[in-house]
C-alpha cells in the first residue's frame, strides 16, 4: 500500500503531532495522535485505490494545519485549567516588559538567549538519549528521536541567533524567534519556559527594529 514517500510523510506528520502535544495530559495526547494516525491511514488507503501518491498531500495538510495545531495546543495546555498558577507571573512580566527589554539591551541578548539555548538543547538531547527506553506501541523510537532532533534544531537556532544578533540584527532576531517561540510553546507548562521564550522574542523584536544596518553593531536598546 505504501506509495513513494508515503511512509516518510506519515512518520513526519506523526512526529509533528507527538511534538506539539508533548506535555499535555496523556489521554488528550493519545487521542489526538490516534485520530491523526487514523486519518493518515485512511488517506493512504483511499489514495491507493485511486492510484494516487498521497505523500505530497499528507505533508501539505500537515504543514497548512500548523497554525491551528499550535492554537489547539495552547487551548489544551495547563494554562486554561490553572489560570491562578500562571496569571500572576505572566501579568508581572507583561507589566515589566519594558524593563526586561532594557535589561536585555544593556546586558546583551546573548546572556538570556544563550541560557535558553542550553536549556532547550538539554531537553532535546534527553529526548534523543531516552528514545530507546521510552518507545511505546504508540510512540516509536524513530518518532521520539525526530522530536529530539527538532528540539535540538530549535536550540541551534537560538544559539546561532544569539551569536550573530549583534553583527546581523535581523538575521539574529529571526533565528532567535524561530527557535524560542516554538520552544516556549512546547515548554508551556513549566512557567519559566514560555516566560523566557517571550523575553527572548521580545528582545529579538527590539533588535530587529533597531538593526537595519548590516555589518554594524545594533545600537543600545535602552
Amino acid at each position, binding site marked *: 500500500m505504501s506509495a513513494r514517500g508515503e511512509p516518510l510523510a506519515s512518520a513526519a*506528520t506523526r512526529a509533528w503531532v507527538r511534538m506539539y502535544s508533548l506535555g499535555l495530559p496523556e489521554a488528550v495526547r493519545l*487521542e*489526538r495522535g*490516534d*485520530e*491523526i*494516525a*487514523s*486519518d493518515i*491511514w*485512511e*488517506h493512504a*488507503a*483511499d489514495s491507493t485505490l485511486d492510484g494516487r501518491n498521497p505523500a505530497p*498531500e499528507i505533508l*501539505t*495538510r*500537515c*504543514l*497548512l*494545519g*500548523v*497554525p*491551528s*495545531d499550535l*492554537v*489547539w495546543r495552547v487551548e489544551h495546555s495547563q494554562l486554561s485549567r490553572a489560570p491562578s498558577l500562571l496569571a500572576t507571573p505572566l501579568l508581572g512580566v507583561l507589566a515589566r516588559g519594558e524593563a526586561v527589554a532594557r535589561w536585555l539591551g544593556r546586558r546583551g541578548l546573548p546572556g538570556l538567549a544563550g541560557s535558553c539555548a542550553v536549556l532547550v538543547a538539554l531537553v532535546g538531547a534527553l529526548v534523543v538519549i531516552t528514545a530507546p527506553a521510552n518507545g511505546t506501541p504508540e510512540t516509536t523510537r524513530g518518532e521520539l528521536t525526530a522530536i529530539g532532533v527538532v528540539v535540538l534544531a530549535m536550540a541551534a537556532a537560538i544559539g546561532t541567533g544569539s551569536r550573530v544578533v549583534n553583527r546581523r540584527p535581523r538575521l539574529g532576531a529571526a533565528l532567535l524567534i524561530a527557535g524560542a517561540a516554538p520552544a516556549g510553546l512546547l515548554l508551556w507548562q513549566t512557567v519559566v519556559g514560555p516566560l523566557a521564550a517571550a523575553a527572548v522574542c521580545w528582545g529579538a523584536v527590539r533588535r530587529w527594529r533597531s538593526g537595519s544596518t548590516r555589518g554594524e553593531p545594533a545600537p543600545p536598546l535602552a
Partner: protein
Amino acid sequence: MLPIELAILQAAIALRADGERDFHGYRIASALRELEGARQLTAHGTLYKALDRMRRFGLLRSRWEDPAAAVKAGRPRRRLYTVTPEGSRVFEAQRLSAESSEGSPARGWQPA
C-alpha cells in the same frame, strides 16, 4: 460559528441523509472536498481543531470504535462523530438565516 464548522455540519447532515449516520475525520474531509469542489483536503490542524470545538460545544458527539473491529479490519481505530440534535438545530437556523440573506451557509469557506 466559524464557516468551516458550518461546512462540516452541512457535509455531515448530507452524509446522514445518504445513510451514513457516523463519520470519521478523513470521511468528512473527503465530503468537504466534494461539497466545496476543492482540489485538496482540509489540513489536519484545521479539521481536527474544528471537530474538537464542535464536540465541546455539543454540536457533535464522538466515540471511539471497538478496537477489535479496527484490528479485524487491519487499520487504526476510528473516532466516529455524530451530529447531535443541537447540531442539527443550529445548522437549520443558520441555513434559514443564510437563505433569507444571501444563500448557502457554507459559501465563502475554502479548505486551508
